[in-house]
C-alpha cells in the first residue's frame, strides 16, 4: 500500500485513498481529472447478472485445479520442480528402452508396458506422497475447506472432485511412459495389432494402479493437516507392505510352497496389482520365479481390488462427513 507501489499512472482519484474509503466517489460522482491524463476511473460497484453454473461446474473446476496443482501448475515455480523432475525420471527410461529396441532391431520391447509401471513403483510412490498431501492436507491445514462448503458444492462433491483429480494425476504420471513406449514400438515397426493390444492393457493397468493408490493415499492425506506426516505415512503405506510381502513370497518360494506365493501377494497393493496384470492384462509376473496365479487366486485378487477401492473411497467420504465451517 506504500505510495511507491502504486502504479505510476494512478491519479489522486485512486492512489492515496485509504482502502476503506476507496469508493467514496461512486459512479459518476466526485471530481473528475481533466481529459487526456491517464486515469483510473472509479466506476463504482457492478453487480453480476451472468450465469451461475452450479455444482457440476464447481466439481469440474475443482478437479482441474487440483489436477494442475498436482504438477505444480498454477502454483509457485518452486512447487513445479519436484513433480516435473519425477515426471522426467519416470518417462526418460521409457524413451531409452524404446531407443535401445529400435537400434537393436529387436522384435519385441525388452520390458512389457505394465511391468515397466511396476518397476517404476518407487518413483511413483514418491510422486504420490508429494501429490496427495498437496491435494488434501493443505486445505485442512489452512482451513480452506469451510470456504468450499459455504458454497453450493456438497461435501461429497469436494471429495469426488479431489479424488478424481488425484487419480487422474497419477494416471497421467503412469500412462505417459506407457504411451512413450507404445510410440517407440510403432516407430520400430513392431507388430501393430499386438503392440496396440498390449498398450491398451497397459493403460487399463495404469488406471487400476492410479485408482487404488490414489484412494489409499487420499485417505491417509485427509487424516492429517500436516503435510510432512502425510508424505511419510504414504511412503510407508506404499513401500513397507510391498517389500514385506515380497520378502515373505521369497521365503515361501525357497521353502517350496509355491501356491502360498500367490496367496501372499494379495496382501499388499503393489503385489496385488502385479498379480492382476500378470493374470488378466497379459503381463508377466514379477513374483519370485515368475509364479502365476491359479484361477481361484485370480478371482480373489479381483474381489480384493474392488473391495479395497470401495473401502478406501468410503473411508475418505466418511472423513469429510462431519467437516463443516
Amino acid at each position, binding site marked *: 500500500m506504500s505510495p511507491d507501489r502504486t502504479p505510476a499512472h494512478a491519479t489522486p482519484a485512486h492512489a492515496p485513498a485509504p482502502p476503506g474509503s476507496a469508493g467514496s466517489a461512486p459512479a459518476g460522482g466526485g471530481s473528475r481529472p481533466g481529459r487526456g491524463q491517464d486515469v483510473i476511473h472509479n466506476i463504482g460497484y457492478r453487480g453480476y447478472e*451472468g450465469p451461475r453454473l452450479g455444482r457440476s461446474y*464447481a466439481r469440474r473446476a475443482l478437479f482441474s485445479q487440483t489436477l494442475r496443482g498436482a504438477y505444480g501448475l498454477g502454483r509457485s515455480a518452486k512447487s513445479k520442480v519436484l513433480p516435473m523432475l519425477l515426471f522426467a525420471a519416470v518417462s526418460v527410461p521409457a524413451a531409452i528402452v524404446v531407443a535401445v529396441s529400435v537400434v537393436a532391431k529387436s522384435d519385441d520391447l525388452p520390458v512389457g508396458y505394465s511391468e515397466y509401471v511396476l518397476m517404476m513403483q518407487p518413483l511413483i510412490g514418491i510422486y504420490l506422497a508429494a501429490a496427495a498431501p498437496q491435494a488434501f492436507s493443505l486445505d485442512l491445514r489452512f482451513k480452506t475447506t*469451510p470456504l468450499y462448503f459455504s458454497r453450493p458444492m456438497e461435501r461429497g462433491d469436494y471429495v469426488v472432485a479431489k479424488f478424481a483429480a488425484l487419480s487422474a494425476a497419477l494416471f497421467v504420471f503412469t500412462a505417459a511412459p506407457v504411451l512413450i513406449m507404445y510410440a517407440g514400438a510403432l516407430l520400430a515397426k513392431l507388430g501393430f495389432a499386438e503392440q496396440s493390444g498390449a498398450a491398451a492393457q497397459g493403460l487399463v493397468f495404469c488406471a487400476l494402479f492410479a485408482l487404488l493408490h490414489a484412494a489409499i493415499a487420499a485417505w491417509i492425506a485427509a487424516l492429517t493437516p500436516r503435510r510432512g506426516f502425510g508424505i511419510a505415512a504414504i511412503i510407508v503405506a506404499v513401500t513397507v507392505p510391498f517389500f514385506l510381502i515380497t520378502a515373505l513370497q521369497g521365503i515361501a518360494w525357497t521353502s517350496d510352497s509355491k501356491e502360498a506365493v500367490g496367496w501372499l501377494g494379495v496382501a499388499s497393493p503393489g503385489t496385488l496389482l502385479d498379480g492382476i496384470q500378470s493374470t488378466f492384462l497379459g503381463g508377466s509376473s514379477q513374483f519370485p520365479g515368475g509364479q502365476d496365479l491359479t484361477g481361484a487366486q485370480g478371482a480373489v485378487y479381483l474381489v480384493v481390488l474392488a473391495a479395497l477401492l470401495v473401502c478406501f473411497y468410503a473411508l475418505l467420504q466418511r472423513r469429510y462427513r462431519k467437516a463443516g465451517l
Partner: protein
Amino acid sequence: MTLVQCPYGPLRPEAYGPTHLRSTGGGRETDTASDADATSRSYRRRVTVIAIESLSKRYPRVTALDRLTVGVEPGVTGLVGANGAGKSTLIKILLGLAPATQGTASVLGMDVATQGGAIRERVGYMPEHDCLPPDVSATEFVVHMARMSGLPTTAARERTADTLRHVGLYEERYRPMGGYSTGMKQRVKLAQALVHDPRLVLLDEPTNGLDPVGRDEMLGLIRRVHTDFGISVLVTSHLLGELERTSDHIVVIDGGKLLRSSSTADFTQRTAVLAVEVTDTDAHPDGTAALREALRQAGCAPHEPGPAGALAPGAGHLVTLDLADESVYDTVRDTAAHLGLGLVRMEQRRHQISEVFTERSAGDVA
C-alpha cells in the same frame, strides 16, 4: 384498464440500484399488506433477508440455540454475543450446513433445511479463522473461489479484479498471500465472500486481530458493502462498540436465546442520559448526594448509583438522569444554584449497547 404487474408500484432503480431490485425478488414478505402506494422504502422494510422461527439446536451436552425467533431486514445487522453464545452455530444453520433440532429458518426466502445449495449460491461467508493458503496469490485464490461459486472463468476473473479493488487490494494481489499483513488477509477473506455478488454476506468476526486503524477501515468497508454494493450484511462480533457504529440493526443473543433485537438508534438514542457533576461545599459536604436528593424532590427521578455506574471511573461524583425534554437542563441548573453548588459539567450521554448486558444481569440478580 392498466395492467399493474408489481403490486407495490414502480420500483425506482435510481434510488436503490440493481442489487436492491434483485434482492427484493427472492425476499419473503413478512406481511401480506399490499397497499399500492407503498413507497420503495416501506417496501424494502417488508422484505426479510433472514427469518428465524423458534430455532433450536441441541448437541448431546450443550444447547447452542434455544427457541430463537428473529427477523433480519436488508441493511447491516450486527449479531452480538459473547463467545459460545451461539453465533457460529446460527451461521452454520443459515448456510444449510447443520440441521436445526427444532424450528425453521429461511434465508432470502429459501428454507435452510431443503434449499441449502440455492442459499449458498447467493450468500457469501467470511470465516472467523484464517483460511488462506500462503503459496497462492490473492488473485488466483479469489478466482478459484469465484469458480467454486459457479462463475464461468472469464466472469470469475473480472469479478475478482473488481472485488479486490473494492476491498482495497491493488498491487499486492499478485503476491503470495503468505506475506500479507492481517489487514490484507482480512480483505482477501472479505473479497472471496463478495466475489460472486451475493445478496447477503455473513461475516464472522471480521475485525478479529486487527489494530485500531485496521478495524476502522474494515468497519468502513463493511458499511460500504451495504451502502455502495447494495449487499445485506450480517456481521457478528463480541465487541459491541464497533457494531454500534456499523450496523443499522442489532441482534443480541446470549446462551442461544434472543436478548434483544432492535435498531441501533433505538439502542443508543431512545433515551438520552444527562450526566451532571457538581462541587462539594461546606453546607453540602457531599454535593452529589444533595443534588440527587433535591432533584428527586423536584420530580426529576435521578438514577440511583448502581453497581453498573460504580464501574466507571469517577462515576461516584456524577448524577445521571433521563433527559426527557429540554426543561430538565433548567431544573438541574436551578436546583444546583439553589443549593449553592458549583456546576462543573452537564453532558448528554448516549446509551451504550453494553448496558443491555448490565441491565440484564441486574435483572437476574433481582
